[in-house]
């Protein structure tokens, strides 16, 4: 079964590699949204420093959500998804592999580029590691929860906007805890409780969402 998991991840990463523009679009969206805030709010350094965690986290949230629309769409269109549904391997496992590959292709780049954007906001250097780590634990949760929404809205009209409506309220805890980690660190406290909570969310999501995603896919492809 693990061989299947590895194959799915390998295949999806290979697909992402062949369509590099898709990955770049999400990343560019992230960069542009973050860069818009100073333009809208003004270049006052203290203010920017204060809003940086929230802005970067919200932008990461939106980018993750945008990337989700593509998670199952291609497989659904060309019939691969149906093969996965009838495969003897548990669908939850295949789905977990797909989400993992999706995160590696669209979530991990966000984590890597976020510290660079944080420098634009003059965020204290000691906080850059906290930002990257909070995103590193938090964005997989976003991918896992979001995949439920992506599976439910598969093939529906107005899928993208609908997906936002379904998924964004569920993202609230991750946003609060993730951005909270930076606020705590900036205030001189330990960010560890936030990391532990994020990790707890990740464990919960990793354990339960694949089955919810699998159930949603079965409903959507009836």
């Amino acid at each position, binding site marked *: 079964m693990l061989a299947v998991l590895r194959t799915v991840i390998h295949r999806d990463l290979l697909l992402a590699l062949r369509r590099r523009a898709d990955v770049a679009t999400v990343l560019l969206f992230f960069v542009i949204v973050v860069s818009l805030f100073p333009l809208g709010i003004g270049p006052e350094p203290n203010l920017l420093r204060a809003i940086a965690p929230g802005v970067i986290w919200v932008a990461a949230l939106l980018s993750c959500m945008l990337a989700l629309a593509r998670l199952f769409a291609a497989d659904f269109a060309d019939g691969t998804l149906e093969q996965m549904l009838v495969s003897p391997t548990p669908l939850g496992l295949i789905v977990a592999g797909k989400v993992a590959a999706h995160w590696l292709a669209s979530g991990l780049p966000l984590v890597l580029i976020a510290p660079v954007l944080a420098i634009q906001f003059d965020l204290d250097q000691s906080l850059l590691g906290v930002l990257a780590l909070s995103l590193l634990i938090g964005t997989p949760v976003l991918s896992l*929860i979001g995949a*439920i929404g992506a599976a*439910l*809205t598969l093939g*529906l*009209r*107005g899928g993208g906007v*609908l997906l936002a*409506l*379904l998924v*964004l*309220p*569920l993202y*609230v*805890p991750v946003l*609060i*805890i993730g951005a*909270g980690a930076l*606020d*705590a660190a900036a205030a001189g406290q330990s960010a560890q409780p936030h990391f532990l909570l994020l990790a707890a*969310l990740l464990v919960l999501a990793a354990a*339960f969402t694949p089955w*919810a995603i699998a*159930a*949603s896919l079965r*409903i*959507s492809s*009836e």
Partner: protein
Amino acid sequence: MSQPTLVIGNINWFRYASPQAFYPLAGAMIPWFAWAAALLCVAGLYVGFFVAPTDHQQGESYRIIFIHVAAAWMSMFIYLVMAFWAGVGLVFNTRLSGMMATALAPTGALFTFIALWTGALWGKPTWGAWWVWDARLTSELILLFLYFGFMALQAAIDEPRRADRAGAVLALVGVVNIPIIYYSVKWWNTLHQGASVNLTSAPTMAATMLVGMLLMALAAWMYSIAASLHRVRSIILERERSADWLVKYRNTVEL
């Protein structure tokens, strides 16, 4: 295959899991609940506005509590009931359960909206602001978004059975998330601005206030039942319009 049964007092209650049996039953129940709602509402408002004493801190403005609290209770409770029926529909594959969940959602969203709206009206005179990012307000707002998400998802799916089941997954995921959302928001709030506004430290309530509130809460219950039963009847009519029993029923009873 034998039919599942749940017999209490000579009535097989599972019979009412079929839209055909439930439709006339709901029709017979609606007037009772509607009248109960109207009477309780009148009684509750009377107690609330004429009997209950003026609050020594907030004056007359506190009286919005009689609508606000009932609506807030109902908004959260209906989501649980909706998720329950959605789950039942998903597990037992009963059509009526899904219809019930669909029928409950607008009533739940309505009460959530009323709770937020009256909360804003109440907040202005007491806190001096229409809106504060208090934990309860924020989580109530997110609850409204969850209702909207559920309704939007069902509206986007044309095939009713798929809509039921997709909505069920979403409602269940939402129900798991509600405590997480609530605690994270509560925690975020205390982290950011401290407990400048506290809803829980209200002084102990006069008995008449409590009676008024409970009457209004009961009225909200009765209204919710009546409204969702009415809505579920409409959904049955819409989905089963070409079913044999409905055609026959139409011929015997004036709709």
